[in-house]
């Protein structure tokens, strides 16, 4: 009893000392906790959407029959594939191939930008606005809030790309890169749910 406790104490000790210095590990853990919390914001909006859609009598604004799904579908495909591209970029970084990393990272950014531009074009052509009834409000709230996240993701990616040209502080396990790509996957998953809710369930 006494001795087993002793060994237990010692092994736990070295473990925790490690943690004390493992600031990147803390940051990663904290970032995941933050993303979980952030996803509740989206879940709340989704919950609100479902409740309002199933209880509101005049759901669509007058004169509006529905949304066109073709362009948003292309957008979706591009955004979802960018999740794979960013993954490849990260692999390159792990193999310490900086140029491979930069190339695929840049492609991710281009795909994200394509998505945003596509969404802006869609917004510009729609016959209803933010204040056109319950549906109008929800549509712009959800896509806008998500778009804000895409934009944030691109901003983070830009910073990481820039940093990769700075001497010194760029190693293969950079927390910033890891967090940015986690965030990007998160934004993608949210979009898939959004696409189903808004475009497929009309």
């Amino acid at each position: 009893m006494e001795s087993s406790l002793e060994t237990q104490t010692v092994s736990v000790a070295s473990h925790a000392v490690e943690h004390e210095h493992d600031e990147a590990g803390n940051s990663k853990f904290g970032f995941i906790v933050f993303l979980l919390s952030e996803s509740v914001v989206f879940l709340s909006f989704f919950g609100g959407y479902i409740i309002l859609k199933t209880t509101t009598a005049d759901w669509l604004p007058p004169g509006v029959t529905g949304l066109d799904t073709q362009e948003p579908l292309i957008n979706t495909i591009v955004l979802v594939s960018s999740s794979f591209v960013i993954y490849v970029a990260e692999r390159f970084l792990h193999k310490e191939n900086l140029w491979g990393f930069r190339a695929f990272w840049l492609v991710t950014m281009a795909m994200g930008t394509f998505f945003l531009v596509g969404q802006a074009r869609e917004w510009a052509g729609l016959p209803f606005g933010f204040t056109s009834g319950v549906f109008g409000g929800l549509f712009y709230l959800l896509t806008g809030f998500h778009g804000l996240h895409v934009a944030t993701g691109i901003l983070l990616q830009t910073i990481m790309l820039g940093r990769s040209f700075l001497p010194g502080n760029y190693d293969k396990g950079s927390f910033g890169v890891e967090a940015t790509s986690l965030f990007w996957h998160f934004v993608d998953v949210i979009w898939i749910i959004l696409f189903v809710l808004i475009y497929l369930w009309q």
Partner: protein
Amino acid sequence: MTNVPVETLNETQQPVPGAPNNWRRFFSFSTDHKVIGIQYIVTSFFFFLVGGLFAMIMRGELITPEADLIDRTVYNALFTMHGTVMLFLWTFPVLVGLANYLVPLMIGARDMAFPRLNAAAFWMVPVVGILLMSSFLVPGGPSQSGWWAYPPNSIQNPTGNLINGQVLWLLAVALSGVSSIMGAVNFVTTIARMRAPGMTLFRMPAFVWAVLSAQLIQLYGLPALTAGAVMLLFDITVGTSFFNPETGGNPVLYQHFFWFYSHPAVYVIILPVFGIFSEVFPTFARKPLFGYRVVAVSSILITFVSSLVWVHHMFASYTPGWMRILFMVTSMCVAVPTGVKVFAWVATIWGGKLRLDTPMLFALGGLVMFVFSGITGIMLASVPVDIHVNNTYFVVGHFHYVIYGATVLGVYAAIYYWFPKMTGKMYYEGLGKLHFWLTFIGANLNFFPMHPLGLQGMPRRVASYDPEFAFWNVLASLGAFLLGMSTLPFILNMVSSWIQGKPAPANPWRAIGLEWLVASPPPVENFEELPIVTAPPYGYGSNEPLTENLSPSNAAN
């Protein structure tokens, strides 16, 4: 890095001299969790006085049946601001402040996981305060829709101004939500990853368990409130129709968002107070916390169950019958883990050698008032009673027993208990006892009469009332003024003992816990060498010197 087993440190062998008592650092941007903790606590007490002032004016108005002191709109603004200030600028920050100060010390860490994030979260609190207070200056004055901000009331904007009291209110609440989420990420990471060697989950003090549980609620609950607040903000400012019934929106949806957070939020408030009780009772009864593991796990259980009960605030809002029954049952379930805790404290005190110092008095008083509020709470959870007393003073009485009786008294207990640790000075026991009795008598005199008033049918949120309610209202107002006065000996005690109190030893209560092993006040990085923990908390024996009870004492050598 080397480690010293905790048993080798005690009160006579102070490892390092304490931090300098330089008051200027409390006004600077510091990343030391202890400085930030005290910044939170002092700021929140400032707003406690502001919220208390609003309460005094309200009770002054209610001492006579007529609305003669202030008019109806001012009264509405006052109860809204009172509730908001008390919750968002006193209760949450003061408990976060205590947790900030104590958690790293209690788990044997040098600081929080993200010190700069911590400071940023704190500095948002004064901004929230400024936003809220500036609503007295805009046309139309502060929000008048109560701290719930239910639409359609909250959507109306008679002044037509884009910047109005309600908008400032929403911005303040959203900002305070952001600050709290930042804090919650920090606490969860710190507790999950920064514990000292040997500090397993079941060696964490109950207070740390309570903070962890409360912060988990912040993480999943606050985003829902924030989502609702954003939608309400758009309804008010640009005219969307999420909650506006006139344009097809659904006001009850807002209530779901609001209560999905705000019901569990009462546990964000009360769980740390439970944690405080669980620290104070064992120390002053010289006994281990009864059923420590059960107490610890019940905190987490409460977190889960409380997220399933929010609709009990909406029994009177067109909630269908089946839903009412469902949520009545889940609500009553929360009473089980809570009851377990009360039982554990009573069993801890039972047969102990009680020492009635000020912290213990406040903890006992808080427990008594909490038990009372628990009984009225079960009454409110049962649909027939709730439908009857909904929006009467009965509800106001119930929740003030919780938030004044349990929370304010519990926080006072914590402040006195850890004051020597935080400041390195002893407080004056006589002033502390005077403070306790004024508070305890004042609180009961103030809030007990609200129950008969509610049962007789006096509605809440009114500036005038039928003369038949006069008797109990006069009593309540006298109690309120007594409560207002009770803060004077407190402030006097805190300020004068901090300046010229007797120096405090590292462990004045002969308590067990890592925070008592370091100097008072603790040095900047808390521990010269990280301690190794080899035993569960609360190893009190009936007539001990404390070091003998941390067994097995030779385990780590």
